[in-house]
């Protein structure tokens, strides 16, 4: 959360429309020294400035992903901090929250510090989510204060939910005093028990053990009760069912401190996509029914769901060549999230960008109001984390062309609308004309 590491050269983003939480206006943007220097019409390029064409494009605060698996340490064959951040940049993200289910898990100050060190040279800001419990085993609280002292604002055992209500209550009580947010992967293990896809008509026909929506919903309901009791904010990771959306909607109306995210695959794909048993469609929570997809879209539209988060989960090809029930869950998300949101949601672009930028920035404590440098607004003096989006460009997803180290995208061959054209991270053009610069 410090100042930009190096003062990058001047950049003029020319001919675009600035879109941020405060509104939208036709404006050029001059960036230098890692900060926005000027926003206005017909600005002149400073001497030696790199001019980026933004004609027909919108210029927004950089996107913020609340849910990225960078896989380092321990899973470097799938992704590293460097390659994951490059994929993030290509997807328009200038910050990612790195999940702690690495090997070893990020459940101590030393482990958190190691990832922060790896991220120093990366092309996006890496905020680390610490584990709630030691080893993510759901038993003993991890040293949250020690990790919070390093800047950790979110804690989660993602990959699994904290099964014990007693442990979760204690974590919320303890975390409340630290001013942090606890994020839950809602999945009751006794109901999910060994399932590989959404439990429903497709799983019944395909003979694949199912994960019922109920496995998520009972934990959402439980944690709403716990958040209400403790007053500590709970963030629900990757909500996937209609009933979960309803529960969160009612909790918010009751004033319970909860926020929620949804992943693009939970509005862009359904359980019918699993019919060919291709493990590239295996993810957890699983792809749900059309009814659930529709509820997720409504939840995003009406604000019940605060953010779109990718759950970017790289896996090497051999692990996705396994039988369906043996393959690990997870799919790539960083490089397709914005385009899927534009293509699938039918929402105004400013609302889509809000779901991907300033709203997740606030949840992660990375926004300017929290002392961070993400989520805008795009005004003189603000940190130059920017995304330039061509909202009408179409492109076809080619797994081999992705910046991620892995190839497990379920969207291969799908043509999407809207594409990130340029990304500026701390003033540096890290993506120019959709190509990563380093």
């Amino acid at each position, binding site marked *: 959360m410090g100042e930009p590491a190096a003062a990058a050269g001047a950049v003029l983003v020319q001919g675009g429309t600035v879109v941020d939480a405060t509104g939208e206006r036709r404006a050029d943007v001059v960036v230098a020294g890692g900060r926005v220097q000027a926003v206005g019409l017909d600005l002149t390029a400073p001497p030696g400035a790199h001019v980026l064409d933004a004609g027909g494009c919108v210029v927004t605060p950089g996107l913020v992903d609340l849910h990225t698996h960078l896989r380092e340490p321990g899973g470097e064959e799938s992704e590293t901090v460097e390659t994951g951040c490059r994929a993030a940049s290509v997807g328009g993200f200038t910050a990612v929250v790195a999940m702690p289910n690495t090997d070893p898990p990020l459940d101590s100050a030393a482990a958190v510090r190691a990832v922060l060190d790896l991220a120093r040279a990366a092309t996006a800001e890496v905020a680390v989510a610490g584990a709630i419990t030691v080893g993510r085993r759901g038993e003993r609280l991890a040293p949250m204060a020690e990790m919070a002292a390093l800047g950790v604002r979110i804690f989660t055992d993602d990959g699994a939910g904290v099964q014990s209500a007693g442990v979760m209550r204690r974590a919320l009580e303890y975390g409340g005093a630290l001013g942090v947010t606890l994020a839950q992967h809602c999945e009751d293990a006794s109901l999910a028990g060994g399932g590989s896809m959404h439990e*429903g008509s497709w799983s019944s*026909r395909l*003979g*694949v053990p199912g994960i019922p929506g109920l496995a998520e919903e009972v934990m959402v309901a439980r944690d709403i009760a716990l958040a209400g009791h403790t007053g500590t904010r709970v963030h629900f990771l990757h909500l996937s069912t209609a009933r979960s959306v309803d529960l969160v909607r009612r909790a918010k109306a009751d004033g319970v401190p909860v926020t929620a995210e949804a992943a693009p695959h939970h509005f862009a794909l359904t359980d019918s996509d699993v019919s*060919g048993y291709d493990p590239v469609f295996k993810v957890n929570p699983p792809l749900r029914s059309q009814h659930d997809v529709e509820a997720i879209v409504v939840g995003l539209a009406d604000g019940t769901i605060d953010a779109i988060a990718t759950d970017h989960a790289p896996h090497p090809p*051999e692990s996705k060549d396994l*039988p*369906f029930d043996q393959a690990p869950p997870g799919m790539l998300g960083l490089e397709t999230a914005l385009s899927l949101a534009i293509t699938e949601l039918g929402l105004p672009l400013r609302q889509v960008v809000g779901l991907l930028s300033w709203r997740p920035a606030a949840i992660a404590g990375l926004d300017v109001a929290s002392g961070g440098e993400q989520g805008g607004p795009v005004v003189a003096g603000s940190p130059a984390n920017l995304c330039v989006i061509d909202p009408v460009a179409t492109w076809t997803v080619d797994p081999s062309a992705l910046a991620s180290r892995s190839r497990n995208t379920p969207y291969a061959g799908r043509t999407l609308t809207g594409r990130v054209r340029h990304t500026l991270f701390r003033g540096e053009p890290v993506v120019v004309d959709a190509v990563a610069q380093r």
Partner: protein
Amino acid sequence: MSPIPRHLLDVGDLGPDGVAEVLRVADSFVEVGHRANPKVPALRGRSVATLFFEDSTRTRVSFETAAKRLSADVLSFATGSSSLNKGESLRDTVETIEAMGIDAIVIRHPSSGAPAQVARWVQSCAVVNAGDGWHQHPTQALLDLYTVRQAFGGGDEGTERISGLRVVIVGDVRHSRVARSQVAAYAGLGASVTLVAPPTLLPPSLEGWPIAGVSHDLDRALRSADVVSLLRLQAERGSGQCVPSLREYTACFGLTARRAATMEPGTIILHPGPMVRGVEIASEVAELPSARITDQVTNGVAVRMAVLFLVLGQGTTEGSDHG
């Protein structure tokens, strides 16, 4: 146009015409089984690999017997004897087998969908599903149809006699690939299928299943059945947690001698095997003349000969000399 698909992964892939064709071809192979030398040269020079990733005796032996009676070369791979235990992936194993010039892979796998994945990985091999997870066991359903046709129609009369029959499938439908194949096969030929099981042994959703109904009352269901098809309680797939005890299961859903005595004359009893006597079927019931369990095994060889012949016979000139 051949009604036989390149791979047999799901009994539904065959359609009614394909099923009729399999049963028709099986008729001639039943006759072969009665010969002193039960062998025909139909698949001479062709090779069939059986690839079993799950314990099985009857299905593997049945397929291998079928292939040998057609004069095919048979290679047998099973977990425990192959490199599968050395960390080789299913994909590499299959690609290796195909590279040896094998014409057909008969695969059993504990994971639903594994044969469909294998079918995507092979170049020219035919893939025959010998049972995948909870999903499908197409040749079991075909041999059941054959046995039912034999009992109700006799000879080689086609499949019309199956239409309208009342079929009751009893037991662990949830974990059963046999049930999923049977439902599709019987319903595809116009039979009326009723599932009988406690709710915990039914699939979570029956949306789209072509069934007449579901019952939790075996006694009532038996009163109007032409075919009673029993399923094994699959303890290894977790059905143990779905019922309080075997004793209670048998009391509610076992085909006991008392229950068998209430069935209409002419009702036949089928069981895919292996049977757990005293649980889903009483020992003395398995020995009744109405129990066609041994016929199922005998017919299984002929039906699998027909499947291998039809799947491998496409596009070859040897297709007509099997009789």
